[in-house]
């Protein structure tokens, strides 16, 4: 076990160094793209805790992102009784507000599981976009809310994109460490026990109600933080910013990243970002194959490519990127472990 711990810490450090030096090697715009990948990664971490560890499926995490995004929008533009809050301080608040919403959803989750729970959460994803339309004066309706552009604080000499990149990945690394620390201790064991068998878990003295709601709360907190960052980066929120399909994409990212693996989720996050925004590039690559002639500008081509890539990934990597990582490292860890 010791060796696994060392490997995990080494991996974390390697990731942190990679994150730190990345902007020096890529263009300013790519920093922004990686920042958005980081936001998806944060949301996926939360979903990983919930679905990967406690086994509760949520098809409504886009709604928690939306709650976070709207919290940031309202606090940084309208503020509290007319005093706008500085954007970075809205992030933890957004996380807490979304987290509370998550706890609320966690309550019915106690009675439902599997498909039924998934449907409830899907209902939330479907109905949430209606709220800003209903309360147009407060939430901005379909016209949405325009935020101030992000700017590096404390006189830091950073472009807005580099700033949002470091902010996002700084938070992502902290939240990754927190999730990792939480999941390797008793909480993680309790959640996994619940996932494997609720009856067995309850009979070994695990408080089902407490842990299941907790998982929802934590997971929604993560999504809220991701949503807050996304709102800041876009400088704009409206109901379409967090569409229903986003919730589905997150589940897709989780499956691609691998259930029960935290680091693999980065691959999941990258996939959902790049397939959404660069499917035309993929179409151009595919065109190099013989007898293929796709028009990258054709409507709907991005959805088709997205679907095709997804099927391929799931066929080739049924356990996701996390499964692949484990497969690569297992011979190494077991070998070294048995020798020592």
């Amino acid at each position: 076990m010791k060796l696994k711990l060392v490997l995990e810490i080494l991996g974390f450090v390697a990731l942190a160094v990679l994150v730190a030096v990345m902007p020096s090697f890529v263009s300013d715009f790519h920093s922004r793209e990686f920042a958005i990948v980081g936001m998806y990664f944060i949301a996926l971490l939360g979903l990983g805790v919930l679905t990967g560890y406690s086994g509760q499926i949520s098809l409504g995490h886009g709604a928690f992102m939306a709650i976070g995004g709207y919290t940031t929008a309202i606090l940084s533009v309208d503020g509290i009784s007319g005093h706008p809050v500085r954007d970075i301080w809205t992030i933890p608040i957004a996380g807490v507000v979304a987290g509370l919403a998550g706890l609320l959803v966690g309550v019915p989750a106690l009675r439902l599981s599997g498909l039924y729970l998934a449907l409830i959460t899907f209902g939330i994803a479907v109905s949430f976009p209606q709220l800003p339309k209903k309360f147009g004066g407060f939430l901005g309706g379909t016209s949405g809310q325009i935020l101030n552009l992000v700017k590096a604080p404390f006189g830091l000499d950073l472009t807005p994109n580099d700033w949002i990149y470091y902010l996002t990945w700084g938070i992502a690394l902290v939240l990754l460490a927190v999730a990792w620390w939480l999941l390797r201790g008793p909480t993680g064991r309790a959640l996994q026990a619940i996932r494997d068998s609720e009856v067995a878990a309850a009979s070994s003295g695990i408080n089902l109600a407490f842990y299941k709601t907790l998982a929802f709360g934590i997971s929604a907190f993560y999504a809220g933080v991701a949503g807050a960052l996304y709102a800041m980066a876009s400088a704009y929120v409206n109901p379409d910013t967090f569409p229903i399909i986003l919730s589905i994409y997150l589940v897709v990212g989780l499956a691609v990243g691998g259930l029960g693996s935290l680091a693999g989720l980065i691959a999941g996050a990258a996939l959902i970002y790049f397939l959404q925004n660069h499917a035309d590039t993929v179409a151009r690559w595919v065109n190099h194959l013989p007898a293929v002639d796709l028009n990258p500008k054709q409507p709907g081509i991005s959805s088709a490519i997205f679907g095709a890539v997804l099927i391929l990934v799931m066929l080739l990597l049924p356990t996701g990127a996390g499964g692949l990582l484990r497969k690569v490292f297992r011979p190494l860890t077991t070998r070294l472990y048995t020798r020592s």
Partner: protein
Amino acid sequence: MVGVRVLLVCLLAAAVAAAAAGARPNATPGVTANEIHLGSSVPLSGEAAIAGNVARGAEAYFKYVNARGGVNGRRIKFTYLDDGYDPGRAVNNTIRLVQQEQVFAMFSSLGTNNNLAVRKLLNDNKVPQLFVSSGATTFGRDYKKYPWTIGYIPPYSEEGAIFGRYIVKNIKKPKIAILYQDDDYGRDLVSGLRRGLGAKAKSIVARVGYDPTSSDVQPQVTQLKASKANVLMVFAFGKFSLQAFNAVSRLNWKPQIFVNDVSSASALMSIVPQKAANGAISIVFGKDPASSLWKSDKGIRLFQSILKQHGQDITSRDLKDGYFTAGMATAYTMVNTLKKAGRNPTRQSVMNAATHLNEKGNPFVLPGIVIHTTPKSRFPLTQVRLQRWQDNNWRPFGKLISARPR
């Protein structure tokens, strides 16, 4: 704790790398010795996809200009991205175009919300937001706050006012029902209509908004019919306008319909039930390639030959699609603006040119229309005629009327 220390080291490393990533080149973006790069975000998919043909029309015109030597020896490169009519994606596209593609200016992006969502961002970065494909009055009116933005088509509020004045003059005892898109676009039209009606604004007996993300407006139309109105304003866009005509026909309702310009394309009008569409009134400022009126017109002939020669994947239907002509008309003005902006255009000089236009003879708009702007009047196209749908054709009637806000 090891973890905490590791984290601190990482954050420190991040800060150092961040400081190193400071300076980046900052010349006039998007203009090189032989190229000017323009960007746009339009719907190429989703319910408003048909309107994305505006960008395809503009693209063909720029290629035509390039084939003739470009503007002052520079060819125009035009990159447009699909936003599915979703403002969030329009934000992403715009940021990508400005930061990654390094465009010189944004040109003719489509949609009211979509342009509103990026207006602040573009103005804060001093990137021109030229000739937006939206008639929301704010794009021409609020230039003090947003000096880098300018509209193109007649403001919706004035279009509404024109309908209002027409009703006052020509319809006895009007009882008006309004179907409108519940955003700045729909509300602009409604407020203009009220102004045009003046004292007769009382004759509005019902108005129902619909949400641009909803799926069908049949319930709204049913509700409006119940008001026993004899006039129906269709301030709806794309598929919603289609659904409105369908619903009117299905309900056997026979009001005098007014349909706003952006939904009045012949391509759209000819596929709705004609018993509802016949006699509908709209405004017009572009030449309609589907109309027999312009069959032998020089401008429309030019339009069709450019599209055939320089357009991409052009079908015979596209040659009669008004969105393509609208795109070409805007591109024509854009080229004139670039010519006016000097040998070596800057973002400032192109803005200056766009606010000092006096363009006569744009071949793709109605004869007699002058595209005119001053720094204090930023509504380029403000002359329109009324038109009536008859026998599968729009028939303009009356003289050119002013749609310039006072």
